[in-house]
């Protein structure tokens, strides 16, 4: 880089040396420079990081603060992993001053928001929670923000936060225990109250009756205090802000219907208030209420007011009124509300019109009692708001018409009417053309709607419409050729005219349809232009469009607009994902009996497969069920209590897994929606495994993410999808995404396949196979599946051929010396009895696939198989491993003995072989 011919550099090195200085002012400037100049892979990063780490623990308060400031401003995630521990230590240390504690909490919040994966907050989240009750309000404020963010990611670890928050609220609100500094226009610590109330919304209602009573009294106190009318604007605003938050919390808790009704009355008063802000908030909170209240009657009493609000001067208030009407719509009021909305659509401004159209479309579809009403409303909607909506609305209309036979006749009539009306909007034209093309024959016999009339109506409109509409009309004309042979010549004339059209699309369509119509064959035309089958059931594009608008918030929304059903769905999904008992959203009742009785604890492997058979599961359970990661012998009784399909699926999963232990490639999981295949290549101590995800369903899947991680034997997770830390005590097995490959696609079509490669490195002997977590969203429902990856110690074994005579010498050597591992099992192998030769061949294949070299003639028994292999690890060296399989066909038993220089290796290989033989 140069400036006016002179070389320019930005003084990175000087900045780093400034940081290291002892004087505060120099340090300050140095950190300022560093926070602006530093980028991720700079060579000075390491120096900066070590200085930061030293400064965080400095006894001098100012230095700690300037270091924390710098950390908050530096923008990359690598910092988070390395320094989080230090910051947490400072936060929790009793010696740290209030000031430092506050800064630490906020710094952690920043890091958490920027790099949620890198900051492994699960470990220290629980320790932070008690600080919510800290006497100093500043600390409580900062910690409250941090805990709110944590509560969304780690609801389990932060569970206690609810009770601490309630007690703190009580202290401020009821006991009046607060320092004078924090009073804002006579309201004590308003922001703290709001933060605590908001935090409580991320937890379910407290279980203990005492806490619940306390919470209710707090809410009641807040409501009472706000009854007195304050004089100053600021005081009123502060009081109302707390009040609204409290009402939101009350609605969320959903404990007492009496409270709900009271809230409804309060809110009713607010919507009629003269203050615009209050009206706005009242409408919004009422929409929240509509999502949780049992009956909508208290709200319906205010319907008139709400409808009038649609004409409010403020556009924001109008929006809220629209959302509220949308949320409070139910079967009785649907008609009224929809007609009101349609009436307003004509006069409302453009920005609002699009949203209104979307909502009207969704409402009409949901609550249509008579089909004629549906079609009328939709056609009117399209004519009114046509310009402002996307194509989704008329697509949806067509989808619905195709799916419902009763609609078709009536919609044809309306379609023809629309075409004849003096003003016909674009989208209305498209819909009418499509409908007539499909179902014109239904009204062909009626007077005035003979085929020739339909064609004439269509033709009359065509010149005035846009290119896209004309394209649809041409398709309709072609369909008419098929439907109504009597007007074939007329249709052909129309097509012929468009063959010379200037627009490429129209010309192409016309030529192709013309050719299709004039070809000799009898069957071609009817087959091609056969009636469209109804579209497959999928989530309405309109709903997804609506939901997209709600998504973009940093803290999760606790509720969405749309009334009870959609909020209930959301809560069920969330409960399914995070509950500690396996409650799946669509299989609640069945799962409750089968869910985890202690008897299933003894078999880690089969329960792990049980997890893969259901769609939603919790990370906690898999951890609980995996005991030391050692896969024990199969016990089929652990799977009793499940339905036959589930059982069959579990046995199939076991078989898949077992096969992958000795075969490199194959299917890992074959479910209803997805299929996961594995391709693996090992060069001990490293390996490469490719995961192929196939979409078996008929709907596309979105938001795919695939993570592989290793759970330690004591249950801690060591997730390594990014570069692993330099000193790695925990990871005996490293697994990370292979570098330089393209990212997963954002969506996967039916029958499509996505793939991801992982590099595996065996550092020491490990017992726990890694887990693969696949998350995706299909038809609006997010799903998480965890599968055990077939990567075991056995895969890192290389075959080694030794002379025949040496084998038993080594065998005895390993058997005699102490501290050497042997694992011996006797297995039931019924397949031996069936066909010894074929079984023998199969066993040979298995042993060869598991990395052992078969030594022929070493064992005096001809049927016995012996093999030799070497297990290679990066850190712990190599282990020799000897294998002896002694099948006894007569008894249907096999004795498998493994002797290795490391007892873990022997154990793991033995269990693998047990699993493979057992699953045959």
């Amino acid at each position, binding site marked *: 880089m140069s400036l006016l011919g002179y070389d320019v550099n930005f003084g990175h090195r000087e900045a780093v040396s400034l940081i290291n200085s002892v004087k505060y002012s120099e340090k300050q400037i140095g950190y300022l420079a560093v926070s602006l100049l530093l980028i991720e892979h700079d060579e000075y990063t390491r120096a900066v990081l070590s200085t930061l780490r030293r400064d965080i623990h400095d006894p001098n308060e100012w230095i700690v603060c300037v270091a924390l400031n710098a950390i908050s401003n530096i923008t990359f995630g690598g910092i988070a992993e390395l320094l989080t521990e230090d910051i947490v230590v400072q936060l929790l240390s009793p010696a740290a001053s209030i000031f430092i504690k506050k800064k630490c909490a906020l710094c952690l919040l920043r890091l958490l928001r920027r790099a949620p994966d890198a900051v492994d907050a699960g470990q220290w989240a629980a320790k932070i929670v008690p600080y919510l009750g800290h006497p100093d309000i500043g600390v409580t404020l900062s910690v409250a923000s941090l805990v709110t963010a944590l509560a969304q990611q780690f609801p389990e670890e932060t569970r206690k936060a609810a009770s601490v928050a309630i007690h703190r609220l009580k202290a401020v609100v009821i006991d009046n225990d607060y320092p004078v500094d924090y009073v804002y226009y006579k309201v004590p610590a308003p922001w703290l109250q709001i933060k605590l109330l908001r935090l409580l919304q991320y937890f379910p209602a407290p279980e203990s009756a005492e806490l619940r009573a306390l919470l209710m009294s707090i809410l009641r106190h807040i409501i009472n205090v706000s009854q007195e009318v304050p004089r100053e604007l600021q005081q009123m*605003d502060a009081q109302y802000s707390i009040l609204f*938050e409290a009402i939101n919390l009350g609605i969320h808790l959903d404990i007492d219907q009496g409270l709900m009704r009271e809230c409804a009355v309060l809110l009713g008063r607010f919507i009629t208030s003269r203050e*615009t802000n209050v009206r706005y908030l009242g409408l919004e909170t009422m929409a929240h209420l509509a999502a949780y209240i049992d009956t909508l009657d208290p709200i319906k009493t205010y319907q008139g007011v709400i409808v009038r609000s649609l004409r409010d001067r*403020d556009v*924001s208030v109008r*929006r809220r009124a629209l959302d509220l009407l949308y949320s409070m719509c139910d079967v009785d009021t649907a008609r009224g509300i929809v007609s009101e909305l349609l009436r307003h659509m004509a006069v409302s401004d453009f920005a609002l019109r699009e949203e209104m159209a979307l909502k009207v479309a969704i409402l009409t579809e949901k609550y249509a009692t008579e089909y004629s009403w549906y079609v009328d409303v939709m056609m009117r909607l399209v004519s009114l708001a046509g310009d402002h909506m996307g194509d989704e609305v008329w697509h949806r209309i067509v989808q619905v018409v195709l799916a419902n036979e009763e609609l078709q006749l009536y919609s044809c009539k309306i379609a023809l009417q629309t075409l004849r009306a003096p003003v016909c909007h674009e989208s209305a034209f498209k819909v009418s053309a499509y409908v007539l093309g499909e179902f014109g024959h239904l009204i062909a016999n009626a007077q005035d709607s003979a085929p020739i009339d339909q064609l004439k109506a269509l033709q009359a409109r065509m010149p005035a419409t846009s290119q896209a509409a004309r394209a649809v009309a041409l398709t309709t004309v072609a369909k008419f050729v098929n439907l109504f042979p009597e007007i074939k010549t007329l249709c052909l004339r129309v097509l012929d005219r468009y063959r010379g059209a200037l627009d490429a699309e129209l010309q192409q369509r016309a030529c192709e349809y013309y050719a299709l119509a004039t070809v000799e064959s009898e069957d071609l035309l009817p087959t091609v232009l056969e009636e469209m089958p109804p579209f497959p059931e999928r989530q309405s594009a309109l709903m997804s469009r609506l939901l997209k608008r709600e998504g973009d918030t940093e*803290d999760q929304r606790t509720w969405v607009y749309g009334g009870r059903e959609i909020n209930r769905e959301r809560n069920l999904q969330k409960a399914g994902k995070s509950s500690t008992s396996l409650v799946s959203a669509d299989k609640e009742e069945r799962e409750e009996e089968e869910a985890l009785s202690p008897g299933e604890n003894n078999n880690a492997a089969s329960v792990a497969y049980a997890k893969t058979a259901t769609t939603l599961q919790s990370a906690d359970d898999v951890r609980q069920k995996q005991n030391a990661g050692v896969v024990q012998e199969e016990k089929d009784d652990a799977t009793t209590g499940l339905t036959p399909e589930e059982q069959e699926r579990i046995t199939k999963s076991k078989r898949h897994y077992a096969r992958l232990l000795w075969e490199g490639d194959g299917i890992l999981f074959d479910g209803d929606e997805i299929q996961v295949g594995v391709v693996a290549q090992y060069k001990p101590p490293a390996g490469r495994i490719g995961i192929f995800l196939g979409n078996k369903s008929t709907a596309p899947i979105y938001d795919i993410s695939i993570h592989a991680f290793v759970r330690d034997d004591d249950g801690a997770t060591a997730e390594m999808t990014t570069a692993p830390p330099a000193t790695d005590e925990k990871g005996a097995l490293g697994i990370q995404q292979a570098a330089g490959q393209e990212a997963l696609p954002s969506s996967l079509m039916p029958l499509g396949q996505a793939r991801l490669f992982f590099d595996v490195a065996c550092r020491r002997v490990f017992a726990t196979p890694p887990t693969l977590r696949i998350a995706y969203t299909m038809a609006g429902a997010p799903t998480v599946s965890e599968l055990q990856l077939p990567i075991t110690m056995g895969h890192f074994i290389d075959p080694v051929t030794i002379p025949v005579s040496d084998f038993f010498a080594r065998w005895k050597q390993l058997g005699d010396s102490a501290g050497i591992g042997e694992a011996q099992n006797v297995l039931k192998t019924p397949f031996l009895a069936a066909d010894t030769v074929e079984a023998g061949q199969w066993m040979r294949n298995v042993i060869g696939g598991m990395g052992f070299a078969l030594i022929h003639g070493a064992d005096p028994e001809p049927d016995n198989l012996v093999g030799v292999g070497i297990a290679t690890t990066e850190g712990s060296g190599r282990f020799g491993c000897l294998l002896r399989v002694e099948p006894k066909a007569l008894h249907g038993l096999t004795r498998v003995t493994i002797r290795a220089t490391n007892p873990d290796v022997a154990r793991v290989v033995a269990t693998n072989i047990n699993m493979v033989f057992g699953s045959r």
Partner: protein
Amino acid sequence: MRIRFILVQNRQGKTRLEKWYGNYSEQERNKLKAEVHRTVASRDQKHQSNFVEFHNHRIIYRRYAGLFFCFCVDTNDNELACLEAIHLFVEILDSYHGN
């Protein structure tokens, strides 16, 4: 509560103070500043609320003499709390500069 950016603009649209809490490119920033001004300045004081929908977020603003103080927050945040935060901010600025 997540604040995305803070803008202080005068009635003509000139930005007096800006602070961005997020990754916005230079171009995006200019576009946002112009849009915020357009949205906020055209609102009538008496009958309009202090909250505007903006691009999937919300702008909470208040007018102090000739300056508009605008905070851009998420849709699920407490609006009145933010409004009071603006007022507190202005009061602190006032007292710090000796008004």
